[in-house]
């Protein structure tokens, strides 16, 4: 993530523990980008589309999305992001969830998810997966949303 403007990581994850573990392991992988954590879909969507520091109004971002949320399905959030008009639709979305149902995975990719990762239950594998995700995040290029807006 060597973009001139700092890329925000938006994490939508209802389980505080998971969020903390994910954050810890991403940091361990050496990713120091700011992480905004939301535990429900409504406030997360509000941040993404309406907040002045959110991706729609303020530059590039990357979304880490859990599918099992209390107020709405993660696939709904994914659909809203990918079918929106603004620059947000080019925001990479990494689905990170416990569900390994093949139909669900297929549906997420159909909706435009960029990566789908199943959370391993075994902690070692989990930590490793997140660290690898961190490595992955450190090399991927995020579109410059400012240019897209202009």
């Amino acid at each position, binding site marked *: 993530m060597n973009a001139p403007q700092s890329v925000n990581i938006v994490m939508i994850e209802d*389980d505080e*523990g*998971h969020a903390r*573990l994910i954050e*810890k392991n991403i940091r361990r992988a050496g990713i120091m980008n700011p992480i905004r954590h939301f535990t429900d879909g409504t406030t997360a969507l509000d941040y993404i589309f309406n907040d002045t520091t959110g991706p729609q109004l303020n530059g590039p971002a990357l979304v880490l999305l859990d599918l*099992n949320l209390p107020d709405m399905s993660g696939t709904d959030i994914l659909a809203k992001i990918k079918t929106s008009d603004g620059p947000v639709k080019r925001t990479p979305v990494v689905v990170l969830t*416990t*569900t390994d*149902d093949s139909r669900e995975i297929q549906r997420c990719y159909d909706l435009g998810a960029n990566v789908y990762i199943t*959370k391993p*239950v*075994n*902690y*070692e594998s*989990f*930590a490793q997966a997140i660290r690898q995700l961190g490595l992955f995040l450190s090399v991927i290029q995020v579109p410059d949303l400012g240019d897209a807006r202009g």
Partner: protein
Amino acid sequence: MAQLPDAAPTNRSLARRMTALMALGFIALLLVGYAAVRVMQRNELHTGLVEHTYQVERAVLNVRRLVEESEAARRGTMLIPGRDVTRANFFRARAQVPVALARIDALTRDNPAQRRYLQGLRLQLGSLLARQDRTLALLGQGDQRGAIVAYGDDAEVRDVVTIRNVLDRMALVERRLMTHRDAELRASQRAFYTLIVLGGVVLAVVAVISTLTILSYTRDLARSDEALRQLNAGLEDMVSARTEDLTRANEEIQRFAYIVSHDLRSPLVNVMGFTAELETAAASLRALVARVDAEAPAVASEEARLAATEDLPEAIGFIRTSTQKMDRLINAILQLSRQGRRALTPEKIDVAALIGQIGGTLSHRLAETETELTVDGVLPGVVSDRLALDQIFSNLMENAVKYLRPGVPGRITVTGRRGRDRVFYTIRDNGRGIDPRDHQRVFDLFRRSGAQDRPGEGIGLATVRALVFRLGGSIDVASELGQGAAFTVSLPLVLAKQELNQ
């Protein structure tokens, strides 16, 4: 739901009605037939009587002719006495008269009126014949004149006229008799026609009533048939609705198991993750305690030292094993739920080959335990789901190897037989066996039997039973402690193709 019409009483009353109608029809027919026979008899009788009348008439005419002939011959003889032909004619006619009379007598024996006339006729004829004799006697004496005078006297007596009258009357009596009989015959024929018409009317009425009855009965039958059909259709609908309910309930359970196991995983990730974090933290704590012990032993209390070196690692160890076990259990539920959701694809399976294959994958453990795997006889083939069948037999055979008696070489025998539309496979071992009290329990999820000295979560047989049920089969175990166990799987010969299972 449609009500079924009360059919039985209708049937009985219909039978009664139809029997009565048929009886009526037969009676009408019998009457007509009887009348016909009677009329035929009467006709025959009448014909006989007419013939009789004609005979009487003929006999009467015959007498008359003979009388006239004899009279003509008498006159001829009187005119030309020497003519022999005329004399001969006279005697021939005279000779025939008694015969003709006898004929009338014979014919009219039953008629008193005719008999009276006949009596008179005989008297008159007697007198006439006497006069004729006298004439001939006079002529024989050559007294032609005397004969003619006598004849003239005879004319005064008018025997011949009387005879003619009597004969006419006799003919008339016969005529009248015939007219009377004709009238009688006509009357009986009229009666016969009336009877025929009557019988015909009765038959027609019977026919109409029976037709109407049968029509109404047929209508009733059609109605009840329709009702029955509707009832049947309703029943089918009901069955399919129930089946749908059951399928839905089953799907609900599958979904429930799936969701629960997934949602159980989430907190487990936390427990395991933070346990790992704790472990890391405990490691640095231990390092700190070690350093404190080395540099300033007075600072660290005994409690802190114990907590860092013993209590924390022990607690973490227990948390780890428990969460790992829980992870395995959740995975087991998830696996069962997945198997319930998987669509089955029936195909023809060579079970003997399948058993051989499984034996191959187990060969290492078979050799280790000196176990001999044999297939006894011919295993029947089956049309079923290959993966499910593989899992069933694998689990059963793995169990057989797993629960052998220590020190006793294992023997696993697979046998099979084919029923009418089912196949049965039995996997028998000589292992430790299962207490009969636990025969049902071993098929329950997370339940095991006997000494808990082998790894496992109590999932295998639960999976086997779930799979067997899904294939439309059943599974039984026969076993005694220490006597080995025999698991018998019964499957439908052909697994019905299923609609895509959601």
